[in-house]
């Protein structure tokens, strides 16, 4: 098994080096590792692979809303050179262009909103489709068969649902947990499936994008504070058992604490997923930097190992995000002071 794997990785490395030589031979180390950041960041087109001069990409819609021009819809291929697939000021369309850093710009400098279906938005739709299909088909089983034992997708979904309900929601929130279970379930499945799909070759780094994690963190922040009861707010503004002069210090700290909680959620998921992707890609980049078969074998082994770790991280991060959300909700709806 192991020997087969080593042989395969040697072969694979050989193939990769042969293909990549014409692409990278001319450039320096920057070009050889540039694909890492290119993968981590969002883009207006979905780039899968480049064989020599053939770019395998999926052009994506570029949607622009501006106060003066209204809604404009283009394709990302309208903004790039047909041969090199490079973005640049020279390839603009109708007063808009995408610069070298993949930022949409307006030639006259007026303000606009970029609503493009970028690589991550497309990935978001894919994740939503996959998750919606999984969960809805599981739900249809329950609607059809009632309380009978779960079959198919339902038997895959059910233990996770029960885990989130009993181990996360019930334990962290307490008796009023039922209201929050659907949100926690959606959160868990979205992050988990997003993480797993992000690990697939050619996929976008959706859950490792700060916009995505920030949105989820803000939703949690709103949910927590909307459901905060009297005791929760009293704890923030009139912390019990603290002398009044000290409140001058404690209250600002508590208020900052309200915001650091979702901030930590946002940063944790973003960093964990992005770092995982960077490490995996860095090991792949080693092959191009050293252009050596030995490194290729080691890299393949390491990448396989890291992928397995990433499977674990994908689950753990989904669990942690959901658990902390549940704990913050639990703190906001708790009836008694826990000291």
């Amino acid at each position, binding site marked *: 098994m192991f020997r087969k794997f080593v042989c395969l990785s040697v072969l694979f490395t050989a193939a990769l080096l042969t293909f990549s030589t014409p692409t990278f031979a001319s450039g320096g180390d920057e070009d050889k590792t540039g694909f890492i950041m290119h993968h981590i960041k969002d883009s207006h087109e979905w780039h899968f692979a480049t064989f020599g001069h053939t770019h395998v990409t999926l052009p994506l819609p570029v949607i622009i809303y501006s106060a003066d021009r209204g809604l404009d819809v283009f394709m990302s291929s309208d903004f790039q050179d047909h041969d090199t697939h490079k973005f640049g000021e020279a390839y603009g369309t109708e007063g808009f262009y995408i610069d070298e850093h993949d930022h949409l710009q307006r030639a006259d400098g007026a303000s606009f909103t970029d609503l493009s279906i970028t690589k991550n938005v497309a990935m978001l739709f894919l994740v939503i489709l996959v998750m919606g299909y999984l969960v*809805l088909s599981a739900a249809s089983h329950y609607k059809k068969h009632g*309380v009978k034992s779960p079959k198919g997708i339902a038997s895959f979904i059910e233990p996770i649902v029960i885990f989130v309900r009993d181990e996360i929601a019930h334990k962290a929130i307490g008796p009023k947990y*039922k209201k929050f279970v659907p949100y926690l379930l959606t959160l868990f499945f979205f992050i988990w499936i997003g993480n797993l799909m992000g690990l697939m070759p050619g996929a976008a780094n959706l859950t490792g994008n700060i916009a995505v994690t920030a949105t989820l963190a803000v939703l949690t922040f709103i949910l927590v504070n909307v459901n905060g009861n009297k005791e929760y707010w009293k704890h923030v503004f009139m912390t019990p058992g603290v002398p009044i002069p000290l409140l001058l210090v404690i209250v600002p700290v508590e208020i900052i604490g309200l915001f650091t909680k979702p901030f930590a959620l946002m940063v944790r998921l973003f960093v964990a997923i992005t770092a995982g992707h960077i490490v995996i890609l860095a090991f792949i980049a080693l092959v191009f930097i050293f252009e050596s078969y030995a490194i290729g074998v080691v890299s393949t082994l390491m990448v396989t190992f890291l992928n397995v770790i990433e499977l674990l991280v994908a689950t753990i991060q989904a669990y942690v995000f959901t658990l902390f959300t549940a704990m913050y909700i639990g703190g906001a709806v708790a009836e008694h002071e826990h000291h």
Partner: protein
Amino acid sequence: MDLILPSSGLIIWQLIGFLALLFILMKFAWKPILETLEERESSIDNALKAAEQAKAEMANLKSENEKLLQEARIERDNILKTANEASVKMIEDAKQAAISEGAKMIENAKAVIENEKKAALTEVKNHVAQLTLEVTGKLLRKNLSSQAAQQELVEGMVKDINLN
């Protein structure tokens, strides 16, 4: 695009997408799934409780049966015992009655025999006496017609007295 600067487009799409997913799943998936799970859990709980109850009832019934059986056995034993006693007593009584009846009958018979005997004896005595009287009369008339005979009789009598 920047790594740590969230882009507005993705935030908007993420917000729309996630909220849409949340509400669709909430209404069409999580609600039925969670309700069914709860229903199933409660039905399992109920079934377990019912089984436990049935088991307890069975045990109860069994012990009740046992008790009934025990009672029946005791009753049977009692009945047998009393029947036995009654039969023994009846036999004893019958025996006693037979014995006493027999004794009575023997007594009666004896009395009758005695009476008959007495009557017979009396009759015989009377008869003998009569006969004796008749014989004696005849003899006397015949033998005592002479002085010598009378003498002889007295002498004979005296002789008898002496013999006695």
